[in-house]
């Protein structure tokens, strides 16, 4: 009888642990309960899909700057967790355009996975594209004549395409909240890839900087992505590289004891640090923990970014974004950039076409 009771207690303990975990995780929209054991989207599948989609992107990502352009800059943000109001994303885009940044990078957790939130994200980018196109795009007569369509070219980067397919140079990586509840389908629909790179060349024969975006939304790079990296998918072997900037979601370093630790397993953590050094990385950018950290390790500068969302920073802040300015001689400067917009009312958002309720 005693053994039976002990068994009952033992089984009850196990069942309680499972139920408690399930209840905790299922009560949060941001978490997928079954994802605790095995996610419903695999990094391997995403990377395979990314490599296929990458070849179908109409607009070439590599940029060749005019010979007389002395320097260029780009803006980095993270963890916008867009819901009904993509205002902070719009503010980031407008801030960058005002300053003349060449492009934008986002470190993932772009929107909280719901179709309506991705609709809002997409709409914000589309609305911004009109302003961007007006400022930077011109019709390329020669290409238009050859293709029989109106082809636009970015005056600064040489990137071209028809206006419908032209993408604002906004380069995100996928975050864990972008993939919960099958969110990859939504992210993929907008951005196509989670694993890609491009280069920026300073003039026709000038030095080349490269930008690598890797998928760590599951807290791992995954076997396939690692194989691809090891097989030389990036352009290291093809071109002489001056600066390498790497972007991913999951943090390597933990800003403090009360922030989430890195979730790379130990060997993967060491592999990644080793690989970044091997790439001669200038700066590695991570997000995920919503906290700032800046440190040198192994000759690589590691920057962990704060979030830019309304929940963490309802009144904004002076240091939610980072701007990197790359000089002609290859050195760079880093500036913290503020975001200050407040969340708009539902009425204002609806009048702009945003969706303020979810099904």
């Amino acid at each position, binding site marked *: 009888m005693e053994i039976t009771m002990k068994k009952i207690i033992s089984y009850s303990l*196990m069942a309680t642990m499972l139920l408690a975990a399930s209840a905790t995780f299922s009560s949060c929209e941001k978490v997928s309960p079954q994802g605790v054991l*095995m996610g419903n989207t695999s990094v391997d599948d995403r990377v395979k899909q990314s490599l296929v989609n990458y070849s179908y992107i109409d607009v070439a990502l590599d940029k060749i700057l005019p010979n007389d352009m002395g320097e260029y800059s780009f803006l980095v943000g993270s963890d916008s967790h867009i819901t009904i109001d993509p205002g902070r994303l719009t503010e980031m885009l407008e801030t960058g355009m005002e300053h003349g940044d060449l492009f934008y990078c986002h470190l993932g957790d772009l929107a909280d996975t719901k179709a309506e939130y991705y609709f809002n994200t997409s709409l914000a980018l589309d609305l911004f594209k009109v302003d961007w196109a007006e400022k930077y795009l011109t019709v390329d007569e020669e290409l238009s004549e050859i293709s029989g369509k109106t082809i636009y070219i970015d005056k600064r980067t040489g990137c071209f395409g028809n206006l419908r397919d032209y993408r604002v140079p906004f380069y995100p990586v996928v975050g864990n909240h972008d993939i919960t509840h099958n969110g990859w389908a939504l992210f993929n629909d907008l951005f196509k890839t989670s694993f890609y790179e491009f280069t920026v060349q300073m003039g026709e024969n000038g030095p080349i900087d490269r930008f690598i975006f890797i998928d760590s939304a599951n807290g791992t790079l995954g076997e396939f992505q690692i194989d691809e990296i090891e097989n030389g998918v990036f352009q290291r072997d093809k071109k002489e590289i001056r600066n390498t900037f790497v972007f991913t979601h999951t943090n390597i370093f933990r800003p403090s004891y009360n922030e989430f*630790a890195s979730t790379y397993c130990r060997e993967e953590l060491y592999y990644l640090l080793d690989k970044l050094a091997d790439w001669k990385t200038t700066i590695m950018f991570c997000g995920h923990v919503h906290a700032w950290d800046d440190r040198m390790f192994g000759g690589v500068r590691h920057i962990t970014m704060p979030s830019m969302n309304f929940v963490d920073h309802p009144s904004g802040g002076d240091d939610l974004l980072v701007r990197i300015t790359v000089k002609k001689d290859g050195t760079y400067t880093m500036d913290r950039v503020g975001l200050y917009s407040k969340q708009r009312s539902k009425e204002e958002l609806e009048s702009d076409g945003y969706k303020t309720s979810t099904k």
Partner: protein
Amino acid sequence: MTTLQRLVIGLLAALAVGSASAQYYSGDHAYDGENRNEVSLSLTTGKNIITGPCIGNTVHYKHYFNNHWSIDGGANLQYTKELYGFKAKGEYHFQVKAFHMFASAEYMFNHYHRFNTNENVGNLSMRFERGYWDITLGGSLIGYNMMGDHYTEPLTLTFGAHATLRPRTHHWNVGLLFRNYDDFYYENWNINWGLDFYYRFSPRFKLFGEFDIRPAGSMSQLASKYETIGKVGLIYRWK
């Protein structure tokens, strides 16, 4: 000592110095009615996304000074991972009502040869045991050196839970576990999910084994394949 015992010890010794590989999980060898010195060896094989198929070899020795104090040490040779390590641990066992409590302090060193990285880990933990389950809580300080730089991670929570089908005194058992540590690593949030078993076929010898799935990511990060490991080993115990 019987012929069988000599044979088994000989086999253990040969494996320890041989080219085979093994890994022995020592962390949750629960109190089963008496404290006995023990030596063990186990074999690990599986697959890891970084290092591919892996096979390793671990030896472990535990010595009791009395019914309360014990020390143990272990060595780890993971050939295909090119991971080599050792650890030393002191433990104090006491009882509070029906709970067996184990307070432990541990130092672990790992050399990840593939990445030219040395890792030092210090851990303080408390294990609470009842007949059918045990829970471990503690803290780890993990530091590593590579490429001429050093980083010590902020204090990391150590946690584990284990429940068994039979009482610990039984001669066989099967259990389920989850924890963020194992023989020769302490992780952050990466949880190791496992099924373990043992079969005590004599007072001195015990066969044990474990099948672990160690996904990367956890909580809000959807878990994804990282490592799958099976291990099997023998423990020799004496008073």
